[in-house]
């Protein structure tokens, strides 16, 4: 089943900014999904439309098969939101905030108190349950918003940049926690501008930039694409078939041009040696433009400014199988 389906989602703000330019997106139930993009890409706008905090201009939203236009209450019941910015009443106590939120979703008070104990303990906030929210540290406030979003045990948890501005220790323990929630069946969508975060947590990723989805794939494929380069070779004379180069993926595009996909670590001498051996004369060679690359350069620059942790990591196999400890 699809946890989330967006069709042609478009948003133009009153000031004329076109934040979303027709987004199509599908997220499977049970997935751990990253919406990855630099600041201003449209992530929060998209999440806002899904959670009724922003009015859409055009398009369709379905949550677990409930159309948000015709079955809004059912659609909303399935979602728990951890927003990008703090939005609880700073003058209420931690426990009041989570228990009331459960009530807004119809969880009876007694059950809500039991859950409050469970989730506040899991998020190391139980000692603070009587504290006024204003007095919490930044990391605690974020965790409070996670606890609050879980109180009605939503089928889908949406987190908008949950670890922005949170120190590395807390970030890791949040990751652990989210994995655990996901393992128990909750679909998770998170937005981030840290590639590292998406890589460590998520199975699928959509990359959003300037209000458009520019890539939607398994995380591992995206990482692979980032680690390879495609070179375009032009030959002096026409050939009938692509050269045979063991260990390389070769594609003939016309009778004088072919493309080779090369791992960034591999050297190119080998290729030239083999081409010479096969009597092919290379006239010129160029890099094929990689649209992901531009994007990631921007992403890396952006988050280098923010925290210097976002460089693509080379060796970790991401996704479920690759839940190895973070190595940087």
């Amino acid at each position: 089943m699809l946890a989330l389906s967006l069709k042609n989602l478009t948003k133009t703000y009153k000031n004329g900014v076109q934040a979303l330019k027709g987004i199509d997106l599908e997220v499977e139930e049970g997935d751990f999904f990253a919406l990855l993009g630099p600041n201003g890409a449209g992530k929060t706008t998209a999440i806002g439309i899904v959670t009724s905090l922003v009015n859409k201009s055009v398009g369709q939203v379905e949550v677990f098969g409930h159309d948000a236009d015709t079955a809004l209450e059912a659609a909303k019941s399935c979602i728990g939101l951890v927003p990008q910015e703090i939005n609880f009443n700073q003058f209420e106590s931690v426990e009041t905030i989570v228990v009331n939120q459960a009530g807004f979703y119809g969880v009876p008070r007694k059950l809500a108190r039991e859950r409050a104990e469970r989730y506040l303990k899991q998020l190391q906030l139980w000692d603070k349950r009587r504290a006024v929210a204003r007095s919490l540290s930044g990391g605690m406030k974020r965790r409070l918003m996670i606890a609050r979003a879980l109180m009605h045990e939503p089928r889908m948890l949406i987190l908008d940049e949950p670890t922005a501005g949170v120190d590395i220790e807390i970030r890791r323990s949040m990751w652990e926690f989210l994995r655990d929630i996901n393992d128990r069946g909750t679909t998770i969508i998170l937005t981030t501008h840290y590639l590292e975060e998406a890589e460590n947590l998520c199975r699928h990723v959509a990359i959003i930039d300037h209000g458009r989805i520019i890539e939607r794939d398994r995380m591992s494929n995206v990482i692979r694409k980032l680690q390879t380069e495609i070179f375009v070779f032009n030959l002096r004379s026409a050939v009938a078939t692509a050269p045979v180069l063991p260990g390389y993926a070769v594609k003939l595009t016309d009778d004088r041009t072919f493309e080779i996909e090369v791992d960034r670590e591999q050297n190119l001498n080998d290729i030239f040696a083999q081409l010479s051996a096969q009597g092919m004369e290379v006239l010129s060679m160029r890099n094929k433009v990689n649209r992901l690359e531009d994007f990631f350069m921007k992403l890396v620059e952006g988050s280098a400014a923010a925290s210097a942790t976002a460089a693509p990591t080379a060796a970790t196999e991401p996704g479920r199988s690759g839940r190895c400890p973070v190595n940087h």
Partner: protein
Amino acid sequence: MTTAPRPPLDLGATRRVGFRTILIREFGRIMRIWGQTVLPPAVTATLYFIIFGSLIGRRIGEMGGFDYMQYIAPGLIMMSVITNSYGNVVSSFFGAKFSKHIEELMVSPLPSWLIVIGYICGGVLRGLIVGAVVTAVALFFTRLSVHHVLIILSSVILTATVFSLGGFINAIYARNFDQISWFPTYILAPLTYLGGVFYSVSLLPAWAEKLSYANPILYMVNAFRYGFLGSSDVPIGVAYAIMLAFAAVLFTVAVMLLNRGVGIRE
């Protein structure tokens, strides 16, 4: 994947629990900041009773055939109900907008009309609490007869509903704190003072009396006073028609505005 089987969504139950939660939260707010919500009207009422009731009232003698203190007591109670029901919703809802915790309700499955009713009931609750406190203060100074208990209760609840809705709509449009004090200061307070709280409009010159009948608060104060004294400057039926009409129109407007997300959702 081990998703526990989910019971089908029970909208009725969700709404019931949700409504109760809004009310609990509003009540919690009134009590948490009782120094701003319950105490000031008690102090103000005491001053009014001392000055207008005991000091000046003794010289005035009778108003509309009643001891002046008895005459103004219902008016003063109603005045505090009006100010406090309005004030409760306008500051609670504007505060929720300002600090963004209104989003807690907006992401929840509760429909707009229920959110409006929740806030309005919060305002009515504050009106009733304050009304009870001011009544208690009044009983220190005078004796209140009860002519029609049902009229007392229904008119105070209807009036509190109307002004809670007014506060709600004000909060929806307000962009800053100035804009939540503008209406109460420049419109609501004058209308209340000129709404027959302190005097019977029959004492006014003809033109002023006529003008007073255009003031909806006059009808509310008089209906309420009728419940105590059995006498009124206006027909009680008309007073109820006006209160009901205001409540219905303002409720429709409030729900429509919230549905559209005016002032909240881009």
